[in-house]
């Protein structure tokens, strides 16, 4: 008797790019004629196009997933990681039967439930209790099952007092708690979870993570978890797979997979640095990043609390008055988390001569952002206004939780920075 509960074979999914709608009738007819009448291969599904968003392909069809093969054993908690566009969401959609594969198959043993969103189908006019029933039924529970677990669900959600109030009166936090409580009590053998945990407050998130590891470890159920949050994946999963451009890049133990992913990520990010010389008055020819006096660029996995030095070598092509340099640090959502400028440390470039060259070192204090993925943009300008030269994604790094903090659980994803505190009992 084998322990395999999910078996995926040659799974592929193609998407059509561009406009869908106009002109498709003629194409559909053509397609029908070629595939069904002549019995030939579909000419619109050209083989070999991978899903690389940055380069323009030759065909309108893109393979979001291509020839994926894997098996998952009973009781495993498998993290699915990969950068945006790697095919994680597509894989989830296929596993949850929201859309069908173009080719290949998925075989499943046992009931499969997926959580791509919490609170799907919640109706604002219905009470909390009615929504538990509705949402539970949508997720595939029988009414009887829900009734049996009703007390437990209400208890887990912590919104007992409002359970007969329409959910439109709920705060967003309560809403999410209730929704997750329903999902957490699903009795399916396999649970597929998207990054729905990125909601709710830290305390509740911890509770959810706890509940999920309880599900996979305690009850021997299988969990598939898609996330950008490496620490969540690490704490929840024992195995992981890395997707890249729609293909399965690596599959194995969680630590190795994350290492592969990070390396992957760094490599692909390093190529992304883009220099824009707006006015041709200055040229930045070297960006270096050092950690403990060792050059780390372009490989960059940093730990919470690391100090880095960024080295900029540039030359003025014309004389510039009041040159200013700024550095933006953005998180994965392209939100600005830090803005640094030469004025911060009292350094000024009031007059820069033509052909004068510089070797500048910017050293940070401890990096205390929340663990995650960050990119640094560098900006050269005049008087903090006029742009001369910019480098987008000059340096990208993954910041991982370290023993800088003694906590064992992950720092919640919504927290933007890590505030170091001293605790003292008097």
């Amino acid at each position, binding site marked *: 008797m*084998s322990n395999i509960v999910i*078996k995926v074979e040659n799974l*592929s999914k193609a*998407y*059509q790019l561009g406009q*869908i*709608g106009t002109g*498709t*009738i003629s194409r*559909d007819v053509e397609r029908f004629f070629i595939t069904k009448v002549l019995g030939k291969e579909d000419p619109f599904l050209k083989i070999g196009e991978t899903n690389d968003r940055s380069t323009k392909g030759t065909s309108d069809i893109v393979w979001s997933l291509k020839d994926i093969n894997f098996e998952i054993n009973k009781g495993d908690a498998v993290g699915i990681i990969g950068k945006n566009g790697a095919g994680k969401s597509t894989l989830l*959609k*296929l*596993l*949850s*039967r*929201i*859309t*069908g*594969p*173009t*080719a*290949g*198959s*998925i*075989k*499943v*043993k*046992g*009931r*499969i439930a*997926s959580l*791509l*969103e919490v609170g*799907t*189908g919640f*109706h604002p*006019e*219905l009470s909390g209790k*009615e929504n538990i*029933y*509705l949402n539970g*039924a*949508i*997720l*595939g*529970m*029988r*009414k009887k099952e829900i009734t049996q677990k009703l007390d437990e669900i209400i208890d887990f959600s912590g919104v007992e007092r409002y359970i007969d109030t*329409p959910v439109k009166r709920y705060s967003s936090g309560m809403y999410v708690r209730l929704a997750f409580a329903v999902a957490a009590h699903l009795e399916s053998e396999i649970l597929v979870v998207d990054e729905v945990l990125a909601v709710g407050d830290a305390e509740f998130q911890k509770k959810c993570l706890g509940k999920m590891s309880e599900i996979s470890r305690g009850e021997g159920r299988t969990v598939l978890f898609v996330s950008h949050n490496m620490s969540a994946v690490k704490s929840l999963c024992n195995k992981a797979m890395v997707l890249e451009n729609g293909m399965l890049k690596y599959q194995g133990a969680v630590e190795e997979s994350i290492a592969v992913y990070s390396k992957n990520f760094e490599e692909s990010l390093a190529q992304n640095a883009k220099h824009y010389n707006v006015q041709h008055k200055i040229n930045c020819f070297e960006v270096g990043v050092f950690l403990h006096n060792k050059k780390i660029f372009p490989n960059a996995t940093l730990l919470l609390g690391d100090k880095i030095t960024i080295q900029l070598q540039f030359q003025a092509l014309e004389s510039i008055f009041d040159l200013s340099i700024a550095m933006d640090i953005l998180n994965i959502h392209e939100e600005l988390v830090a803005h640094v400028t030469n004025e911060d440390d009292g350094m000024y470039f009031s007059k820069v001569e033509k052909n004068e060259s510089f070797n500048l070192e910017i050293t940070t204090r401890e990096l205390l952002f929340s663990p995650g993925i960050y990119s640094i943009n560098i900006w050269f300008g005049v008087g903090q206004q006029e742009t001369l030269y910019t480098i987008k994604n000059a340096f990208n790094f993954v910041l991982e939780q370290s023993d800088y903090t003694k906590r064992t659980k992950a720092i919640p994803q919504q927290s933007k920075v890590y505030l170091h505190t001293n605790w003292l009992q008097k």
Partner: protein
Amino acid sequence: MLQNNDSNWDLVIKGRTSLFDIKFKDVWAYRDLLFMFVKRDFVSFYKQTVLGPLWFFIQPIFTTLVFTFVFGNLANISSDGTPHQLFYLTGITAWNYFSDCLTKTSTVFKDNAGIFGKVYFPRLIMPLSIVVSNLVRFGVQLVLLLLMMIYFALFPVENASFYITHAIWFFPFLVLLMALLGLGLGLIITAITTKYKDLTFLVTFGVQLLMYGTTIIYPLSYINTSYKKYIELNPMTPIVECFRYAFLGKGEFSVYSITYSVVVSLIILFFGIVIFNKTEKNFVDTI
């Protein structure tokens, strides 16, 4: 090794499946959800309005008044010897149910793209729940019809009479038939509109025109021209005629014409389910 045998697996998801691979078992497993949706529809409709279920009365009353004035008084179209108001109201009640089923199921994919894109359940549950939900409205309108019938029984009008016939036993069957026909057409339309949106525009006025092609404002017996055979081609005609015969004792239908309706409805429903089933697998990608 039996590993490659599909029967070892509870669920096999494949790219290409047979057209007729319809998972009725799944639909049955999710039957509780169907009733949750019905309840949701009813409660949400009821909660958002001031007059609540009274709205169900208003539309047929006003339509009946207008029809009585325009077609009864001005155009002087026969009502087959039954009171005009009752004649129109029976037609409207039946037609409303059919057209509600049709128009609401015809936008199932569009209206539920959000929920369909996030969670799997047998998609057929949604249109089925619409058909059942509409029964509530139909039931309320039926009460209105019965009230009107009582009124006209107590205060009869000159030269007009009506009586309930034994055909009333066929009533559930007629309702089922209307539901299946409306559902079938709706399923076909919603499946096609995921790709070709143009059809959406056709539905609204198409249903309205179809009403004039059904014996709602005139009795079938009134038509003696060559148009009659086209009106008879409409599968709704025998249903409405039989419905009216059941309640008012007037109507022109035969076993033959009813059988015709049943056959057409079943064929349309069959195609509807097949095309809907085919579309549901990938519609998220195109809508």
